[in-house]
């Protein structure tokens, strides 16, 4: 019978000790935690420095998306900045209802056009609100903080070493006894 009382007191001691600690939660949504630099939550399409839209409507992101949430309509028209004819995306829809936030679309973009943002989309009452179209994606570029990752940076991080002189190559090979089962 005694062990019950003793163990109760020990458990009580631990919980009471926790009462005196500072709580670890924050008052969301009034306070929000600072997210990491690479945190990926929503999407944005980018312009480059001259104001030109980076997206060329190549549909690489549409092809790679595992959930098939991206729909791109491409067109060719004159650029308002350089005057030359190039391809654009006429309509770009990204459905966040089904997106799995895998970052593959960011990885494959040849022009670093699509990136992810660090703040999540607010919850919505209608499905359409979570469906991002081009206007909202370009809005996100201006209004939301962007993650660190875009296609060039990811590729730079992941790339195997460039072709080196033979001596260094032999040393590198000695390390790479990659063992896949």
């Amino acid at each position: 019978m005694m062990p019950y009382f003793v163990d109760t007191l020990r458990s009580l001691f631990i919980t009471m000790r926790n009462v005196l600690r500072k709580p670890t939660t924050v008052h969301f949504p009034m306070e929000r935690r600072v997210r990491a630099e690479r945190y990926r939550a929503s999407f944005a399409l980018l312009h480059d420095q001259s104001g030109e839209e980076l997206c060329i409507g190549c549909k690489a992101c549409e092809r790679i998306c595992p959930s098939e949430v991206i729909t791109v309509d491409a067109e060719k028209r004159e650029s308002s900045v350089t005057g030359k004819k190039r391809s654009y995306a006429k309509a770009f829809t990204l459905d966040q209802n089904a997106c799995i936030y895998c970052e593959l679309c960011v990885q494959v973009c040849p022009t670093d056009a699509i990136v992810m943002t660090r703040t999540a989309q607010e919850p919505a009452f209608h499905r359409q609100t979570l469906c991002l179209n081009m206007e909202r994606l370009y809005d996100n570029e201006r209004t939301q903080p962007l993650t660190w990752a875009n296609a060039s940076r990811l590729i730079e991080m992941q790339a195997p070493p460039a072709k080196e002189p033979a001596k260094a190559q032999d040393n590198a090979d000695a390390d790479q006894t990659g063992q896949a089962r």
Partner: protein
Amino acid sequence: MEVEVASSAVSASREISANQRPVTNRSPAKTRRGDPYLDIAAYDPEADLMVLNLGPQHPSTHGVFRLKLYLDGELIVKAVPFCGYLHRGVEKLCEKLTYVQLVPIFDKNDYVSPMMNEQSLVMAFESLLGVEVPRRARYLRTLLAELQRIASHLLWFGAFAMDLGGALGGGSTLFMYCFRERELILDVFEELTGCRFHYNTHMIGGNRHDVPAGWAAKVHSAIDIIEHRLIEYENYLTTNRIYLDRTCGVGVVDADLAMELGITGPILRAAGIDHDLRRDAPYHAYDELEVRVTTDIAGDCEARTRVRLAEIRESVRLVRLMIDGIPEGPLGSRKPIKTNLAEKSERGHAYAAVESPRGELGIYVIGGGANRGASPYRLKIRSPSLHALSCLPYVLPGHVVSDAVAILGSVDPIMGEVDR
């Protein structure tokens, strides 16, 4: 059923256990096997037994899982499990998606430990395609897997306490504590990959995200806090008399039953069989690390808890060994993903297995499928939770409903990988 647990055994759980030494001084128990195919009509002609569905909607069935119990009062006479409520057709989906696209989908298989899923998948693909993985990537994958193991076991521990004590009560207190510690690990993952959960950080031939500056310090502080708090949890729950009454001698899965049903992981090790893929069939960086495996011989819920807590400690030790010594080098041996059809294969086959927190998670892949060979032809997932759940019809009869919940919690099924 009062079982005296010697105090030396209790304090032994605070030290890191060595290979092959059981942590308790209790004798190995035999499962009182129930009959899963009991003919209820013959057993109970007057239909006195009550049929209770621990139904798909239940606060503690660990996902959607239906357990049909035939009860004599509160005693379970026959238990029939029904899974499949979370079947999403992942294996069929694998025939349509390409190798590159499958990795983020597979995060959702065993949704509590995504690193293991991705790791086993890319290992299978690398084996099929004949791709070598550079040393840095192998090391990083191992490190992430061990961190994920800590996070998964912490989640399990909180959920198990909730099963024992209720969402409004002592169990939820431990649940909150475990999640507080787990957030430290999830923050670490967020620094590295950008997502707290479901990372998509593995790719065929290496990893996609490299270690940012200051990451090692964050991992160190997270690990230190977790190791410190584990002692607090043990004082709080695992030495509590009420908890010991609820879990000692309950749900004994002995070695014979585990071997017959193909159960691996902590359940097998708690039954006394010393088998851990990290040590017996090492992959990635495990051949450089000496993984110390904990076994227990009692095979009941308390033994499984001990084994899992010891595994957390072991993972903490391994992470400490690895975190400061990640070798330099490239992160991938293939070109980074630029198109969907980057990897193609002919008809060949490969099997790769990792030691997930639940057991041996294996992927068997036959290549040469759709998209001109860029998709697998067939992919089969060997999920440890499915085998673990199959022990329920044998173990549950003879226990009461409260025990059923405790046993289900300690078996740690994740319905995502049971139903795929």
